[in-house]
């Protein structure tokens, strides 16, 4: 086996200019794949963190039955033993923040115009931490000592033509039926990455909203923020036990974000596969072309070695060894170039990306290529290169000896 590679290596070195050009095709291909994977990885990670830190948190805990019945009976499945729950949750490792919250829907109006809002009633410090990805464009966040302050999304301010200091009337449905309303002062304007968020977000004081809806000391969920997203599996067993004891249920961010995460992920995954397929085809074409040229130049040599007793299989093996060496060397260099380019792009501050569809802001793309993915790509391109050698190897092996010996 080593003998195939020895001859293959010598032949590559003999035509080193041509070999370098072919190896560069593999280098460019693999480093492009790695850069795209790094971009994709960082972008999805950014999306994940922005969703988690855009108000969803890592885990949301509800009264058992809430997830199934909350749409038709929003205030019948509330967490009432909040104090006990918070005490128990404080002992769970990796939990950084515990935020009791009451979600509600309502309508805000000002000056004859109105807008539907998706309201969040919570504790000011906790809500501000949970929404760290959103930017406070103007004013300040809600404060517990100002129960009539409200923070709204930038889309609402544009629709109602209001600003910090203006008064809004918030109207909601009450628990027992009927409608209630309250005047609130805009203390701040918030902007997240997603447009629909900016068009409907409203943050208000927990106790104020509880009184408005006519529920006392209850919340519909408790949100947990962990110190790291990777610790999600760690807290699972604790929450499972707690939920069984206290009649609760919970779900994590992956179940909560739904298509907001899975659709972009699917898009990127498909794009990655498409890009990789195109690159693989280009690499196959390049290597096959090089080896066909090499084979044409070595017809007489092939006739000679066949006359010395080299079998057709061995002749094929020599060419496949050559193509494998191209794949291997190109793969090694390509991985190094890919990681190097990613580090360089990150060092110069990343690449600015304009706002994607449905987003209000652009972002800076960084590159986070995965080492395991690099190894997988290297293996893929090694196989691709080896397979590229099959056709030239087949042609070489099928040559008739006397015709090859007569070749000029």
């Amino acid at each position, binding site marked *: 086996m080593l003998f195939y590679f020895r*001859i293959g290596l010598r032949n590559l070195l003999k035509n080193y200019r041509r070999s370098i050009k072919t190896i560069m095709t593999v280098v460019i291909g693999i480093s492009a794949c790695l850069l795209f994977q790094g971009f994709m990885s960082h972008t999805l990670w950014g999306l994940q963190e922005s969703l988690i830190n855009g108000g969803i948190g890592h885990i949301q805990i509800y009264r058992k039955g809430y997830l199934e019945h909350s749409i038709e009976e929003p205030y019948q499945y509330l967490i009432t033993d909040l104090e006990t729950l918070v005490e128990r949750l404080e002992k769970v490792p990796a939990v950084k923040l515990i935020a009791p919250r009451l979600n509600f829907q309502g309508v805000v109006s000002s000056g004859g115009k109105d807008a539907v809002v998706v309201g969040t009633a919570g504790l000011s410090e906790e809500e501000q931490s949970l929404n760290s990805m959103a930017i406070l464009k103007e004013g300040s966040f809600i404060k517990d000592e100002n129960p009539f302050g409200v923070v709204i999304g930038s889309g609402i301010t544009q629709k109602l033509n209001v600003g910090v200091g203006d008064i809004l009337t918030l109207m909601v449905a009450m628990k027992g039926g009927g409608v209630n309303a309250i005047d609130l002062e805009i203390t701040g304007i918030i902007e997240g990455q997603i447009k629909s968020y900016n068009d409907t977000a409203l943050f208000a004081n927990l106790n104020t909203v509880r009184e408005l809806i006519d529920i006392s000391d209850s919340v519909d969920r408790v949100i947990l923020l962990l110190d790291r997203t990777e610790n999600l599996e760690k807290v699972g067993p604790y929450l499972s036990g707690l939920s069984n004891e206290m009649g609760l249920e919970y779900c994590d961010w992956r179940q909560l974000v739904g298509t907001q995460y899975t659709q972009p992920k699917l898009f990127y995954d498909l794009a990655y596969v498409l890009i990789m397929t195109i690159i693989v085809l280009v690499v196959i074409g390049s290597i096959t072309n090089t080896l066909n040229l090499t084979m044409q130049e070595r017809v007489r040599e092939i*006739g000679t*070695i066949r006359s010395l007793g080299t079998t*057709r299989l061995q002749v094929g093996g020599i060419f496949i060894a050559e193509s494998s060496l191209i794949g291997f060397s190109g793969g090694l260099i390509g991985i190094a170039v890919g990681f190097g380019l990613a580090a360089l792009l990150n060092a110069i501050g990343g690449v600015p990306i304009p706002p994607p569809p449905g987003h209000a802001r652009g972002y800076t793309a960084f590159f986070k290529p995965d080492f395991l993915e690099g190894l997988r790509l290297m293996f893929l391109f090694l196989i691709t290169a080896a397979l590229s050698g099959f056709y030239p190897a087949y042609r070489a092996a099928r040559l008739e000896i006397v015709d090859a*010996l007569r070749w000029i």
Partner: protein
Amino acid sequence: MISVRNVSKTYRMDKVEIDALKNINLDIEQGDFISLMGPSGAGKSTLLHIIGCLDNPTEGSVEIHGQKIQKMKDSKLSIFRNRHIGFIFQSFNLMPVLSVYENVEYPLMIRGEKVNRDKVLQTIEAVGLKDYLKHRPDELSGGQRQRVAIARALVTDPDIILADEPTANLDSKTGAKIISLLLDLNSRHNVTFLFSTHNEMVSKYAKRVINILDGELIGMDEVFLPVL
């Protein structure tokens, strides 16, 4: 040792059929040193290719040590060639990316067995090139390259070495040295040689001269040991 019986070879070139060999009958014994003489296009190379299992006759048969080579599959034929037949080509046909040592070692390496390094070195020494082991073919003269080719043919201890115009690309002095080397190997090691040439001067060194014209054997001359 080698029996050629009623061998004919016909090539088809578009709609024209060309009879390259017509009903050749020939016996070659161990230790023979035979020159195949004839002008260009006489069929010398075709006969060498058929005896060397590089091509199949249209009719007839070739037996080497009692084995009918036409019945062998391609892979078995490759192994048979490697073990029983050596080749020397007019243009040397060395592998340009391998050194002298590696070119001579090559026929042993493709067997998949451990190569006897001493055997390779002895063979290279026998052709007078022990100081050129690491040289590549492009660093050697024509005569030296042909010596490497001879060593490569010899290293497997073949039953017969077939040489197709071995001195055609060499000057007369070098050519004479090569033939002298072949004769030396023939007399000291009893290696059987069959070589083709259209050069009468070269043929004078052969023990037997077989004349071929238009695909037919037209005569065999026995000659005594030549004077070099």
